[in-house]
């Protein structure tokens, strides 16, 4: 069985995703530049430049280098950048699945906006590692992961906009 390769996009420290937990007893492999010797230099250089280089460009570069099947986007801030990144991913790398990791304070409208930009699902940062694995697998099978409530709102937007 082919492993599901996952890349994590994070900008804040307040909502770190536990990468080790994701890999434990699962077919998920988290792609991390520090694990790839060839990219050590580039990786550390990018980390030094974070905040100064354009977030979307640098993230897309990382995605191109690591070529993950799934990207977990830690969307703990309601900023336009995440939506722009999703749109860019949707057009440049349509085969890559994007999952938003959100906290409870994010509004439904923002989630809908993110879904309309190409995210395949969203999960809260309080989810257990086991559930994380379940969601990543379901999305890898072509499903989407959203609540029925959000799904209904999305359908209303499709029908009545």
């Amino acid at each position, binding site marked *: 069985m082919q492993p599901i390769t996952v890349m994590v996009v994070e900008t804040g420290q307040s909502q770190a995703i536990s990468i080790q937990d994701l890999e434990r007893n699962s077919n998920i492999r988290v792609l991390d530049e520090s694990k790839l010797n060839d990219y050590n230099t580039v990786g550390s250089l990018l980390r030094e430049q974070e905040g100064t280089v354009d977030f979307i460009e640098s993230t897309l570069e990382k995605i191109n280098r690591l070529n993950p099947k799934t990207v977990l986007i830690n969307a703990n801030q309601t900023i336009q950048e995440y939506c722009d990144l999703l749109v860019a991913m949707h057009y440049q790398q349509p085969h890559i699945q994007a999952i938003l990791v959100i906290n409870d304070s994010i509004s439904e409208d923002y989630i809908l906006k993110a879904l*309309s930009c190409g995210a395949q699902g969203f999960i809260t940062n309080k989810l257990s590692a086991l559930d994380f694995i379940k969601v990543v697998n379901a999305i890898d099978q072509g499903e989407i992961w959203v609540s029925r409530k959000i799904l209904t709102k999305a359908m209303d937007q499709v029908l009545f906009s």
Partner: protein
Amino acid sequence: MIILSSINKETLLCWKSALSKTAFLSSCNTFSALKKNLQQLNPQLILIDYELPGFIGYQSIQELLAISKQIKIVLFGPNLSDETEWDFFKAGIKGYCSDKASAEQINKVINAILQGELWIRRTLTHRILDELIKTTDEKKRIKQSIQDAIASLTHRENEIALLVAQGESNKNIAYQLAITERTVKAHLTEIFKKMRVTDRVKVALIIKDVIQSQ
């Protein structure tokens, strides 16, 4: 109030058993009777059997929604292809359920739908997001083309378009801008051409929409 519409007695019995705690139930056995009941009873929900006499698919769903926009429709039928089932959702149903579902399952479906949720197969859910992305892209494209059209207006055309949006007549616009009515008409012709519309009402609606969104 919930209307149960089926010609099959067993189906009706199963639905009634699933909804035994619901006080207001009405049933009918043809599509035309269903339409009449919908107009008279103003129900929250309709259960429709795919085999209901007179029911002809998407068109029938749209007919019911034309009578009552708020009505929630659940269709019960055989296993349909993803494409057909999805088209029913696009027509406006809130749920699709197998005609072999148990009373317990039906109860669950109806409760979810009454709470404002959709009852849709997991394998169809990605279609909602695909459509959402398409709709959003289309909206962005329309917004951009409107912005481009407005940006292409000259200063004078812009002034006139704004006055049209305020509901001013050609005569008043001519007076306010100290130009002739004929000149106003000439500018309007150019505005219509640039904005790809045929009348002043559409210009007014577009300009008002742009102003509100700013």
